[in-house]
């Protein structure tokens, strides 16, 4: 690291869990962020600011006026712009040292494996179950850690799935059979809730990359922003899971 980098990351380097070695590890890391909406915004901004070297940002959508209440990567001047391009601009301003690779295509069982290959972690900040199950399957197949978050109304959920055999995956929690989406457009969402959930995802991602602390691996964190209560539940491998169970 040069002097400017040492200064930029100094408040993080002084943490005993990070240090120069940890910061260099972050700079050499590559993370896929699936979705650049309410959750993907704080995730991308914190990971860029913290110096994660390469961010692969994926979203097919364009910025809409109704996004701006909570999707803080984007602004009024970006209406109609691809979210990937808007993200590039915001992240470049935050930290021009971070390499940002964009993907604007659909995210399916066919397209995800090449995106997941070669990353150190995947952050699921998507807004539908079809993508969530496809991301999980790709991560489980590649053995890549998945930092999963979801938010709607005033409640959120966060979990980390290691991708290792013997640990539960997202499909051990919820079976992949036609679960119906509840959308923010139909149900609403409290703006800072996605900031809370996304920030927790970003923190967990840094911990996973650094190999420090106790991550949410094997746990489901429930967030109730109305009561402002957090609750952690244990997860286990589902013997009926097609990816992890006895049939796998």
């Amino acid at each position: 690291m040069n002097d400017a980098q040492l200064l930029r990351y100094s408040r993080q380097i002084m943490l005993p869990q990070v240090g120069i070695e940890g910061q260099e590890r972050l700079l050499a890391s590559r993370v896929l962020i699936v979705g650049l909406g309410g959750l993907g915004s704080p995730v991308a901004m914190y990971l860029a600011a913290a110096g994660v070297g390469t961010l692969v940002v994926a979203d097919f959508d364009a910025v809409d006026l109704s996004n701006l209440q909570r999707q803080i990567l984007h602004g009024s001047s970006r209406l109609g712009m691809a979210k990937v391009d808007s993200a590039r601009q915001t992240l470049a301003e935050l930290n021009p040292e971070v390499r940002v690779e964009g993907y604007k295509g659909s995210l399916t069982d066919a397209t995800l494996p090449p995106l997941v290959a070669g990353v150190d972690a995947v952050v699921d900040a998507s807004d539908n179950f079809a993508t969530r199950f496809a991301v999980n399957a790709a991560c489980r197949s590649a053995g890549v850690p998945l930092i999963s978050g979801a938010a709607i109304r005033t409640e959120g959920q966060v979990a980390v799935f290691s991708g290792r055999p013997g640990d539960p995956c997202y499909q051990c929690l919820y079976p992949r059979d036609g679960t119906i989406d509840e959308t923010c457009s139909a149900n609403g969402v409290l703006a800072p809730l996605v900031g809370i959930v996304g920030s927790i995802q970003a923190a967990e991602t840094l911990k996973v990359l650094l190999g420090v602390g106790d991550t949410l691996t094997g746990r489901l964190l429930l967030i109730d922003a109305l009561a402002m209560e957090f609750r952690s539940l244990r997860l286990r491998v589902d013997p009926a899971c097609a990816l992890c169970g006895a049939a796998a």
Partner: protein
Amino acid sequence: MRVSIPTPLQSYTGRREVEAGGATLAEVLSDLDHQFPGIRFRMIDEQDRMRPHIRFFVNGGPVRDLAQPVGERDEIVIVHALSGG
């Protein structure tokens, strides 16, 4: 025992925590339905299977069998899958 109700089902209970009784998870759900008619069908289908977006946790751990015995001091958390982002 204390049962935590997810937000989408609080339209039945009017609150996020309720008291219910029973010797098994199935009996607790029946008691909930007695108190709050219609709530069980939102969690359990016609074939007595858990709906895929509903999960049950007893004392912090997942339960996948409705015949799971439960005690008066146990705490049940009902979780509703979220996909929003």
